[in-house]
């Protein structure tokens, strides 16, 4: 019996090659996309879960009444807390973003020294590897003495190849000076971890004043400046809420000034993805992004399945005779139900297999596309198998049920004669499903257009500065005696190069950030609450504004002398218009020479016109520019001709002035555009989603059109005999479908508008959602749908009427 079912199922597939192909391919495509996106979702979900202490590690957050949660806290609290709160088993402090610098391995001759800049270098407590369960490759699991470090396997290979790294000494040059470290451990960096580092430096190193290089704020026992994340490993069964409030009380006792602060413990399980959209604490991943991607995945899968249901039910009438004959020959209804469900299950399974093959083949491209190392193995977990298999069964049941339940319910005689009355009802359901598919596709199209429109707007909107032809050179990190003089001489030498039109130095660059933010800055006659306002501080030399094309509204730039004497000595500042307004100045009046208070009194010598220092996602910040000779970044303007030679000339100059520092450069506009990488990525995903959704929907439409054309063969024949033209018949056949697409446009437009309007709220500067977007999307949908249908319609219309009538 089973063999007979499979024989029939298989022969049916072969006989209707076109339908089978559309059916299996469409569903496989949908499942494939679903699997890809689910890889991403599962990866996000699994982040940090590899840690054995996943349910016992908590990050300390300080929540003040006024502001956001702060997670960079003073490191000195950690040992005090461990001592006073018994529920705390251990702590790990992580200082991210202060360690980056240049690493040098002074190799014994004849091998050349190896030097490279490492951004992913962090200070941690020596128990880090154990607490976070990073797998140890070599060495000891803890490295608590000063001047020790752990290397990732990749970095170890980069530096030492297959040689043993343990015991080797590396020189690390960063803001704390040049410090030697001994390698104690080599670890494997887990992909699904929020803490990412190529090199882990022992935080204890900074306990020595000499190793801090004058940066006393970085004292690991300090209680003032917050620069570490403190992770607490709680005892098994400890109540994190209770521990949090215990800590709050302790901190209040120790520091009455922190009366407004509440300490909360953020579980490692909520570090990557927030448990809700209103989660107040900072997370590394984006719940919204995961949810949006998940919805896209589900919608595409739905489109594919709808296709499948549509095509199989459309074909069902072809199976009517078979159902009837089987019934007459004694098949019970349950036998038939099982037969047809098994058949759809087989088809679905075939699609899954095709999808798996597709995914495996396309995985490298997908990884390039998303910039992540994903694989099907990410999905290998209990919940996914359960969900996957139930989805498979549910899908087979849904798509097979029309044939299995509806058709088999009829009297054998009526199904055999093909007079199944439900064909009208069946068709209206099919129409509904087509509308559903096209609605989703059109929402994707509109969303994509709006997304790219916004991206384009952000990329082309006047920034208020000119980033064209600007080359930015990373300043030196490895420093030595007489550094300041070398910085000045390098800058001067840059200006001497024949191809350099303009040049400047600054301690950060547009598109990347400021230097720090500060509060408590007011005019001499402040309003109530002015001291609570926050200002972005940017350190640069006198040439910065001219080089970046930033215009002055009032006053002028620093004098060279001011910059070289440094801002804390000369007490002169430049502000932007936004800052002027925040300080309470009227920008139409003369502000030059006015004084502001920031501890000491500073004189405003210039007001620059507002420009977009950071991406258009963010509002322009009130900014105060502090003059200094600066050596973080050197910017020069030159045209793009003969770039290779120019770069090597600069490199030569750089290497001779700053020996031991790797030469790195970037174009200012590239750096600026990099801010839109996540929007670009989202845009790519949407473009792909829209294309695939449309493709699958069109596959279905193509199949349906073929089916209708076949069903209406007799009608077409009669119409042709009565004198209908090919055009009129093509129109007749296409019209119904086009109406469905138009209905979809009407439904999709408000949904897409609402979704994208909400999305745009994240941007301080938004491109408007104008009516033409909907017209374009609608026209596209109609054009695509029409070209899909017309092929079948024209084919049917051109057929010889005599043939179609005779076959009836």
């Amino acid at each position, binding site marked *: *019996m089973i063999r*007979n079912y499979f*024989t*029939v199922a298989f*022969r*049916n597939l072969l*006989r209707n090659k076109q339908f089978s192909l559309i059916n299996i391919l469409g569903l496989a495509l949908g499942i494939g996309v679903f699997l890809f996106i689910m890889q991403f979702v599962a990866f996000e979900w699994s982040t940090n879960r590899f840690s054995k202490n996943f349910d016992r590690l908590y990050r300390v957050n300080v929540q003040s009444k006024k502001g956001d949660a702060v997670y960079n806290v003073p490191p000195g609290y950690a040992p005090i807390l461990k001592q006073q709160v018994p529920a705390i088993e251990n702590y790990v402090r992580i200082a991210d973003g202060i360690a980056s610098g240049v690493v040098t391995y002074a190799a014994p001759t004849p091998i050349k020294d190896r030097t490279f800049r490492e951004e992913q270098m962090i200070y941690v407590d020596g128990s880090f590897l154990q607490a976070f369960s990073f797998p140890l490759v070599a060495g000891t699991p803890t490295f608590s003495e000063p001047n020790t470090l752990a290397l990732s396997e990749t970095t170890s290979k980069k530096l030492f190849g297959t040689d043993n790294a343990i015991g080797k000494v590396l020189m690390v040059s960063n803001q704390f000076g040049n410090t030697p470290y001994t390698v104690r451990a080599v670890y494997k960096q887990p992909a699904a971890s929020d803490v990412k580092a190529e090199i882990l430096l022992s935080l204890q190193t900074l306990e020595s004043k000499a190793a801090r290089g004058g940066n006393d704020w970085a004292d690991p026992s300090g209680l003032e400046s917050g620069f570490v994340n403190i992770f607490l490993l709680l005892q098994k069964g400890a109540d994190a809420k209770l521990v949090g409030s215990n800590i709050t009380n302790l901190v209040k006792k120790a520091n009455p000034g922190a009366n407004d602060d509440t300490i909360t413990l953020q579980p490692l399980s909520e570090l990557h993805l927030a448990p809700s959209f209103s989660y107040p604490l900072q997370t590394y991943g984006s719940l919204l992004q995961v949810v949006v991607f998940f919805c896209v995945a589900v919608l595409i899968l739905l489109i594919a399945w709808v296709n499948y249901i549509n095509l199989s039910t459309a074909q069902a009438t072809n199976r009517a*005779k*078979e159902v*009837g*004959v*089987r*019934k*007459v*020959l*004694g*098949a*019970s*209804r349950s*036998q038939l139900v099982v037969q047809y469900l098994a058949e759809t299950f087989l088809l679905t399974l075939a699609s899954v297999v095709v999808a798996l093959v597709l995914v495996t083949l396309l995985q490298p491209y997908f990884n390039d596309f998303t910039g992540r190392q994903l694989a099907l193995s990410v999905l290998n977990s209990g919940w996914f198998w359960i969900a996957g298999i139930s989805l498979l069964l549910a899908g087979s049941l849904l798509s097979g049920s029309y044939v299995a339940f509806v058709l088999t319910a009829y*009297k*054998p*005689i009526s199904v*055999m004669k093909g007079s199944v009355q439900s064909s009208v009802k069946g068709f209206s359901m099919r129409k509904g499903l087509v509308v559903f598919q096209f609605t989703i596709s059109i929402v994707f199209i509109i969303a994509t257009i709006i997304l790219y429109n916004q991206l384009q707007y952000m990329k082309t909107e006047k920034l208020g500065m000119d980033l064209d032809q600007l080359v930015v050179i990373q300043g030196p990190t490895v420093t030595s005696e007489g550094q300041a003089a070398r910085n000045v001489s390098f800058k001067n030498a840059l200006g001497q190069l024949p191809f350099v039109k303009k040049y400047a130095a600054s301690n950060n660059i547009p598109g990347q950030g400021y230097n720090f933010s500060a509060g408590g800055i007011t005019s001499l006659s402040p309003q109530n609450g002015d001291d609570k306002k926050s200002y972005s501080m940017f350190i640069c030399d006198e040439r910065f504004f001219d080089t970046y094309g930033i215009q002055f509204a009032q006053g002028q730039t620093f004098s060279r002398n001011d910059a070289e004497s440094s801002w804390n000595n000369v007490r002169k500042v430049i502000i932007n218009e936004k800052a002027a307004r925040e300080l309470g100045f009227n920008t139409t009046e003369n502000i030059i020479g006015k004084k502001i208070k920031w501890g000491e009194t500073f004189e405003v010598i210039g007001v620059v016109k507002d420009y977009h220092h950071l991406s258009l996602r963010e509002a322009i910040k009130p900014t105060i520019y502090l003059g200094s000779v600066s050596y973080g970044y050197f910017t020069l303007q030159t045209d793009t001709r003969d770039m290779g030679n120019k770069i090597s000339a600069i490199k030569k100059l750089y290497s001779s002035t700053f020996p031991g520092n790797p030469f790195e450069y970037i174009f200012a506009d590239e750096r600026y555009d990099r801010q839109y990488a996540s929007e670009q990525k989202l845009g790519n995903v949407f473009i792909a989603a829209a294309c695939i959704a449309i493709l699958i929907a069109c596959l279905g439409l193509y199949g349906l059109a073929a089916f209708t054309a076949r069903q209406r063969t007799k009608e077409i024949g009669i119409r042709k005999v009565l004198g209908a033209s090919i055009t009129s018949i093509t129109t007749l056949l296409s019209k119904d479908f086009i109406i469905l697409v138009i209905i979809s446009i009407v439904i999709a437009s408000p949904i897409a508008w609402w979704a994208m309007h909400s999305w745009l709220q994240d941007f301080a500067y938004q491109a408007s959602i104008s009516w033409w977007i909907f017209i374009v999307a609608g026209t596209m949908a109609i054009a695509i749908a029409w070209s899909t249908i017309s092929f079948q319609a024209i084919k049917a219309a051109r057929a010889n009427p005599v043939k179609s009538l005779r076959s009836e």
Partner: protein
Amino acid sequence: MIKISELEKIYRTEDVETVALNKLTFEVKEGEFVAVMGPSGCGKSTLLNIVGLLDDPDDGSFLFNGTEVAKYTERKRADLRKRNIGFVFQSFNLIDELTVFENVELPLIYLGVKAPERKTRVEFVLDKMQIMHRRNHYPQQLSGGQQQRVAVARAVVNNPKLILADEPTGNLDSSNGNEVMQLLTDLNEQGTTIIMVTHSEHDARYSHRIIRMLDGQTVMENIMV
């Protein structure tokens, strides 16, 4: 074998009510070969469907081998049907995706007959119908006469007591038609009861008795000599 009395079947659509069988009374004895004739729409096919347990009557009594089956559920009818009745249709109604062998095998599968026995029985009837050489062909590869022979083979493979034939020669030329009629006569002579609906006086002459219908009632009976 079949005793029908006061049988009624009415088809209703939204506006129209069509009386297909109007208090029809009619009897067929075991071993008989009965032809049912009449103009289109007189109710012959409806009668055949009810006798074949494919359809249920609205009113009246239907005794099959002495058992009242008029009020049987679909399931019970199906069960009775697959054990006792074979069908031959005008349009053959073979399943296009199955070979000759597989088509004939189908009723045995639904009866739960084991595979080795199925093979023996199918080959036996195929041989008897002289289409053994076509056993692995698909219906589209056969002529109309051959297709109808497969259909007859399928109808008799489970040794039914009753064969219902709905215009079995309607789609065949005269020589193929005669062949099929000869097959039916042979089966009847071996003891199978046959009820055949036909438009053809020629075919009807193969039967023992002709029942003529008009407007859902029997109007005349001719006993053939």
